[in-house]
């Protein structure tokens, strides 16, 4: 939809007839909502070269006159929208149509924009580029935590995975640039290999049945979307540097882009070096991190009907894992839980990363061809190739620490073809076919039997989504089919070691429907219901071995069947003038055959002692929750925001709570924006607080240690932008956990061993030209 409208925009860029004299040229046009096509009144159009602008009228029309021949940079603003820039080489009177990407909430540097995408019935939340680069020293998942209903499951300071409405891992698809992220996504201690700097938007679709994306997303879909390169022949760029006090970390990113005659291009490079982090009262030894990423994007409009895009990214990371969290058996774990300060804690800060550590490399190559036949039909064919190399190093005897204890190489090939047809009267059909092949191989260099076996998977998916918009009503119906075939090659756990082959085939379907109804101009209701089937993954069927982090032996279950989930999401958005915005979202999900790890009564005796045994089992589960957001501006420069997330997960067959469900949490912020001055713009201060409740919906015997208490974290930030000619320099300072509170979070697996992070101040410089 979005690309299609951009294309329309290109078509309309063709100048209209008319002879013009010098400096009597005009640019006129209409500002429209990208999703609905409804004209947007009272937006502003600013011409940088003239330092002047006009506003669009009540019908979204605007007209700039008295322009000379030459190059112009135009900037379009509308309340609740992202700023859009456009380059124009003006030779005669020109008519343009501008499509604005709409957010229901106002743009603010460190605010997250909770919004309903205007052209879908599923609820989603988005963070934009400004907000991303403000906190880009953090992991992707930590950024998403700012959204209601989204949290993280962590393994210490450097490893986090997103949890959407209580579900994570295999149940949340992460799409990087439209390609489902491959890699070892099954592991709770395997963070997604994505550099947030490449994204223009990061969105989370919370509804079930985001059917256009590869199957099995019971929880939600995380979208990392780079922007199209702006049509501007001048070289533009951005350098962003962040220094953080906790871990004495440096994060540097540089981005360059240009719309050259031969093609439009953009490159981005990131380096991150962080040392040992600290908890309020001690250092967290060996929790440093290194990250080096590059990405390149190339776009070429071959003719008015055909566009090609090429994208490549390399993600490279090395992450230290708290030395004191590396344990040998259950006795060690009990001892670690009782210790005040983790074992192996050093007094000296260091950037060195020792064992245990992870080293991961991820390549993504994407080639997209988009063909627009006419203003109704378009076809996009996309290829995505990924290579993921993950090595995990443990503390081992006799210099074997240099040998990885886990070494996996994964290849992933993806081919997709999507056809869109726009009919009359706001009806549209989107349909597609997707093929995916994944090959996963263990490197025997480890000298250890692999935790998950070598395997290949073949997936075929097809979907169709029909949408119609009429007056104040938008409805959507969709269906999807997925065929999954696994080839698994195992090494037996008994002696003599034997190689066995197993095959599994799953046929899954998904259905979804949604309605959006604008009851009043101030009130919008969304209902989305989806029924999704997810086939079990190889780790759930074939895991075999010791999971050291949790001191348990995990065993897969080859009899697992597909999970069947039904989720309903109902949300209401209330917007009262520009002062009050309220969003309430309630959801309920029922999962039949929910796959989970069941602790068995027996202990497995090994030479390292007795270990609890966990097996993958299926049960019926429910997840119900509420996300609330309210934003209020009593006067123009002051804004109050409050957010609340509530979730309850239950295993209804066994009559007990589900484990590892995020705690309920409440957060709030107050911000004050100063009036823009001559030189200083966008100056604002804010104070924020976050209270995470204790997870009380859990039985005492469901965890090895007592559940951590609730905690409160205080933060604050200040920032301003200096404008110098055509460049901008932004300086901002943000503090986290300013009270240096000692706390442990239920969702962080490091909580058995150490306190969470102490206070941190990040200073950020951003230079844009």
């Amino acid at each position, binding site marked *: 939809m979005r690309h299609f409208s951009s294309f329309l925009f290109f078509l309309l860029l063709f100048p209209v007839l008319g002879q013009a004299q010098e400096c009597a040229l005009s640019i006129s046009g209409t500002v429209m909502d990208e999703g609905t096509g409804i004209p947007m009144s009272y937006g502003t159009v600013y011409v940088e070269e003239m330092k002047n602008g006009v506003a669009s009228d009540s019908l979204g029309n605007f007209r700039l006159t008295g322009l000379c021949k030459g190059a112009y940079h135009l900037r379009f603003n509308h309340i609740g929208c992202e700023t859009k820039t456009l380059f124009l080489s003006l030779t005669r009177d020109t008519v343009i149509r501008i499509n604005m990407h709409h957010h229901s909430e106002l743009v603010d540097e460190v605010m997250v924009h909770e919004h309903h995408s205007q052209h879908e019935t599923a609820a989603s939340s988005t963070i934009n580029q400004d907000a991303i680069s403000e906190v880009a020293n953090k992991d992707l998942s930590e950024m998403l935590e700012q959204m209601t209903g989204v949290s993280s499951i962590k393994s210490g300071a450097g490893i986090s995975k997103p949890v959407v409405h209580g579900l994570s891992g295999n149940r949340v698809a992460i799409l990087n640039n439209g390609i489902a992220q491959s890699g070892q996504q099954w592991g709770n201690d395997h963070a997604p290999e994505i550099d947030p700097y490449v994204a223009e938007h990061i969105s989370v679709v919370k509804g079930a049945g985001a059917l256009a994306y590869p199957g099995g997303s019971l929880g939600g879909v995380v979208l990392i979307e780079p922007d199209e390169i702006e049509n501007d022949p001048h070289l533009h760029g951005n350098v962003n540097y962040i220094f953080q006090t906790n871990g004495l970390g440096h994060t540097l990113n540089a981005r360059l882009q240009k719309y050259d005659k031969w093609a439009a291009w953009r490159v981005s490079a990131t380096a991150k070096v962080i040392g040992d982090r600290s908890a309020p009262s001690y250092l967290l030894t060996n929790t440093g991190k290194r990250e080096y990423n590059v990405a390149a994007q190339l776009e070429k409009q071959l003719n008015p009907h*055909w566009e090609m895009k090429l994208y490549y990214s390399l993600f490279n990371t090395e992450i230290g894992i708290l030395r004191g969290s590396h344990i040998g058996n259950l006795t060690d774990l009990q001892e670690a839980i009782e210790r005040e300060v983790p074992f192996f804690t050093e007094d000296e800060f260091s950037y060195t990363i020792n064992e245990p550590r992870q080293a991961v490399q991820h390549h993504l190559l994407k080639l997209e061809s988009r*063909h627009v036949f006419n203003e109704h039909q378009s076809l996009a064919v996309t290829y995505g190739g990924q290579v993921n190399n993950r090595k995990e190093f443990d503390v081992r*005897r006799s210099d074997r620490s240099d040998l990885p204890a886990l070494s996996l190489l994964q290849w992933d090939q993806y081919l997709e073809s999507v056809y869109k047809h726009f009919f009359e009267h706001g009806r549209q059909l989107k349909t597609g076919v997707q*093929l995916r092949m994944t090959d996963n191989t263990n490197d025997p260099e480890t000298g250890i039997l692999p935790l998950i076996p070598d395997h290949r998977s073949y997936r075929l998916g097809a979907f169709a989504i029909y949408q119609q918009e009429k007056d104040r009503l938008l409805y959507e119906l969709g269906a999807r089919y997925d065929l999954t075939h696994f080839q698994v090659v195992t090494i037996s756990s008994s002696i003599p070691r034997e190689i066995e082959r197993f095959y599994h085939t799953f046929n899954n379907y998904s259905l979804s429907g949604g309605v959006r109804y604008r009851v009043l101009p101030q009130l919008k209701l969304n209902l989305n219901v989806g029924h999704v089937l997810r086939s079990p993954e190889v780790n759930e069927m074939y895991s075999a071995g010791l999971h050291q982090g949790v001191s348990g032996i995990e065993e897969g279950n080859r009899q697992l069947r597909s999970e069947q989930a039904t989720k309903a999401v109902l949300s209401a958005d209330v917007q009262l003038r520009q002062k009050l915005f309220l969003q309430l979202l309630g959801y309920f999900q029922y999962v039949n055959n929910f796959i989970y790890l069941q602790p068995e009564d027996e202990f497995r005796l090994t030479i390292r002692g007795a270990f609890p045994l966990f097996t993958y089992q299926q049960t019926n589960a429910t997840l119900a929750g509420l996300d609330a957001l309210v934003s209020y501006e009593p006067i123009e420069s002051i804004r109050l925001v409050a957010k609340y997330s509530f979730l309850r997960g239950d295993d209804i067959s066994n009559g007990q709570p589900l484990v590892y469900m995020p705690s309920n949490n409440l957060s709030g912020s107050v911000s004050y924006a100063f009036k823009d001055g001559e030189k200083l713009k966008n100056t604002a201060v804010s104070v924020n607080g976050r209270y995470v409740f204790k997870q009380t919906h859990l039985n005492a015997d469901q965890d090895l240690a007592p559940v951590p208490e609730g905690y409160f974290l205080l933060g604050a930030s200040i920032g301003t932008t200096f404008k110098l000619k055509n460049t901008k320099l932004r300086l901002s300072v943000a503090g986290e956990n300013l009270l240096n509170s000692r706390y442990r979070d239920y969702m962080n697996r490091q909580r058995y061993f150490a306190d969470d992070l102490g206070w941190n101040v990040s200073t950020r410089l951003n230079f844009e030209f």
Partner: protein
Amino acid sequence: MKYTKNILWALPLFTVLLFTACEKDDPEIPNEEELITTLIYTLTPDGGGTPIEFRFTDLDGDGGNDPVITTGTLAANTSYTGVITLLNETESPADVISDEVAEEADEHQFFFQVSGANVTVAYADADGNGNPIGIESTVSAGDASTGTLTITLRHEPNKSGDGVAAGDITNAGGETDIEVTFQVVIQ
């Protein structure tokens, strides 16, 4: 247009290719050279006689079959010289892992915890810093009794911790490489 048609044709072809693609190769079975399958605690009576052997064997590692544990009977009021041998019996001939432990003596220590039986175990060896290792030990059996003996091997313990050199595991820390428990009978 022609181009797109070609792609459309390629799609089913690609599908067929994908689903009939050749089988995944056999994995190479890793050489588990670090694995400890066997612990043997050999007790030789000081006055001579047949050595007694405590043996814990788990040939297939963490999973698979249960380990096999054999114990011996100690004579009352007798002293023994104890030697621990660690083996990897998946190799042929078996790898002697206790040699690796001896090479990294300062990073390893065995601990002997007795419960119920009238037995005391004392260290009879030392690393380069004069701290005990526990590969060699002396065992004194008292009056007839029964109980258990737990042998623990810690990697990277804090050897200077309180009581650690005397064999108290409480402040040792580090991580456990071995923890096996034997029934002990003194007659």
